[in-house]
């Protein structure tokens, strides 16, 4: 009898020990998604990053995620649930999760948090973002080459610095090719709404634009562009499937590199709260293959991409004028990150009034 008890006790101890050991070995990394992981855009890009992380770190990491989490009190609950379920590192992947992440981070000082595209940090809360505007500049140049009419349509989400920055970068890029280039902007006031985005695309095409770009997350604008026979740019994920003959290129978010870097630091005990803002050179965004364009345009785009990558070209470099014609940057002057992150004005060439 004693033997049996002893055996049971040892087994239990071994099981207990091995469970504890595996828990300690594996870093549990969790993600909160605002959309569906198969949205074809923003969230899918984050989920691909998560899968890359799993592939790269293999046994050392275990990942979990919650998808379609609405911003607001539901987000707070979702993040808290992850923090309580043993996640050591939590990525919250939407700007709207900012305040919820701040609240939960304060409550769980031992858990590390990373919030995408926000600006509030804490000792256990880092932020990360990507210099999407670098891709916009390349798109602008392509658009100016491709467009017959010299007018591009821009489906924008919210008038926040992030989006305004993209619009400006696009125009600045386009105007290096065609100094008279203009863009028309429609504010869809959503990140994710196929219906509204498609309506915006139709409205823009009806106004005579012949190339389309979007700062919203679904493939609806791409499909409308394909139906109407004009060219378009994809956003966040490679959208070429939605428009095989339509997509010129896409800004593809490749968060995987960042997720791997940060998780490795976390495992090594070297994680620190940072505000990271990486660009093309760091591999956090890449350009989808340049398609549906003449070879010379493709060559130009590739050259520009290489220049941005090497640091030789910075999109926000003067001489640049604001929309009202007043001077913004002198020749050779480059905008600093602070100005970019608070950007609330248009540069010359935007045919729209910025909602203030």
């Amino acid at each position, binding site marked *: 009898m004693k033997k049996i008890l002893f055996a049971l006790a040892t087994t239990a101890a071994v099981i207990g020990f091995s469970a504890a050991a595996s828990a300690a070995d594996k870093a549990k990394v969790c993600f909160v998604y605002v959309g569906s992981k198969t949205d074809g855009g923003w969230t899918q890009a984050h989920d691909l990053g998560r899968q890359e992380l799993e592939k790269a770190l293999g046994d050392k990491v275990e990942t*979990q*995620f*919650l*998808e379609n989490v609405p911003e*607001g*009190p539901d987000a707070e609950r979702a993040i808290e649930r992850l923090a309580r379920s043993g996640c050591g590192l939590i990525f919250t992947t939407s700007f709207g999760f900012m305040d919820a992440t701040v609240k939960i981070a304060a409550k769980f000082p031992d858990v590390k948090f990373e919030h995408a595209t926000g600006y509030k940090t804490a000792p256990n809360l880092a932020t990360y973002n990507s210099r999407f505007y670098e891709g916009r500049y390349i798109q602008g140049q392509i658009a100016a080459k491709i467009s017959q009419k010299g007018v591009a349509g821009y489906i924008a989400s919210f008038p926040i610095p992030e989006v305004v920055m993209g619009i400006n970068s696009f125009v600045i890029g386009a105007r290096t090719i065609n100094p008279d280039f203009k863009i028309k902007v429609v504010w869809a006031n959503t990140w994710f709404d196929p219906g509204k985005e498609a309506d915006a695309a139709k409205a823009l095409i009806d106004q005579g634009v012949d190339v389309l770009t979007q700062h919203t997350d679904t493939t609806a604008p791409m499909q409308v562009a394909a139906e109407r026979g004009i060219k378009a740019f994809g956003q966040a994920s490679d959208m070429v499937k939605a428009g095989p003959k339509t997509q010129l290129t896409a800004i593809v978010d490749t968060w995987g590199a960042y997720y791997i870097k940060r998780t490795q630091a976390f495992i090594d005990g070297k994680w620190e709260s940072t505000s990271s803002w990486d660009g093309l050179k760091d591999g956090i965004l890449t350009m989808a293959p340049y398609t549906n364009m003449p070879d010379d345009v493709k060559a130009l785009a590739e050259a520009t991409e290489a220049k941005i990558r090497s640091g030789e070209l910075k999109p926000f470099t003067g001489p640049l004028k604001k929309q009202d014609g007043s001077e913004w940057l002198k020749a050779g002057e480059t905008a600093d990150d602070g100005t970019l992150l608070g950007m609330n004005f248009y540069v010359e060439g935007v045919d729209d009034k910025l909602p203030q």
Partner: protein
Amino acid sequence: MRIELERRPEVSRLFSLLSPVIALALMMIFGGIMFLLLGKNPITALYSFFIEPLMEVWSLHELAIKAAPLILIGVGLSVCYRSNNWNIGAEGQFIAGAIAGSILPVVFHEWHSPLVLPLMLLLGMLGGALFAGIPAFLKAHLNTNEILTSLMLVYVAQLFLDWLVRGYWRNPGGLNFPETRTFDPVAVLPEMIASGRTHWGFGFAILAAVAIWFMMRYTLKGFEITVLGQSERAGRFAGFSTRKMIWFSMLLSGALAGLAGIAEVSGAIQQLRPVISPGYGFTAIIVAFLGRLNPLGIIVAGLVLALTYLGGEAAQLSLGVSDKVTRVFQGLLLFFVLSCDTLIRYKIKLVWSNLTGTATEGAH
């Protein structure tokens, strides 16, 4: 061959009481089969759905937070539906209440006084009631269909909120993001119990449910509501006014939805955003019917529905199923509740041919 529903001569009292329980059991069985087909262990699945969220204190608090607006709105709606007024626009009244109550912390944000919070709650109720007053007026005096008017006003409220938070009420320090400034601590609904986040919204929900239950059961007003709802003509003979009842029920449910709105904004979100409700006003319709239009039943129904949301998240984590499974689960629940109710009142009859019906008619 066709299928007909035939009214049962007598409805079993026992089965009417058991109906939600049977529905719940059926949902579990079919939900279990669904998990089996998805390749998941149905026992663990059902455990993480229905038990896991109840095992921890913080999770119980979350349950109360999620259930509070559903119960508060559902209770108000039950009065409407019992009196035969079909207010479908609680979502809009919820938003109207949230906006009206937020006037103080957003526009007069420099005013710090213990009066702020009570006034906010009052304004919230007033806002919701006034907004429900529109379909009430249209129905009482112009005889329009309140289902349509109240529903359409939901979109008006949503767009008005959207316009406000992108325009005049936008946080000046918020980098152009569409949200108002965050509320000052004096404007935040305090927590009810020290152990967690549950705010007084849940307390209001329970108080409202008990008060309405008392009114329906023990007061003349409650009798009036039931009589007018079941037979307008009988009610008129008794000297009850249909028109007054439209006003009463709509204003009451509007005020409760408005209270739910300001309680949610002040207690849980602490600012206005373009979207402040994941459809509480519509889900509350399900809650009202699931609770048999009985205020005490609505408390239970609100908690059950909130549990399916929380369980859905727990299941996403422990099983790795998609959040769509939660929706399917809620759908199953509603489907079985409705079909159990129907089958208790009616029986299914297979009619093998139409000819019998026409033949008898012909003989007349």
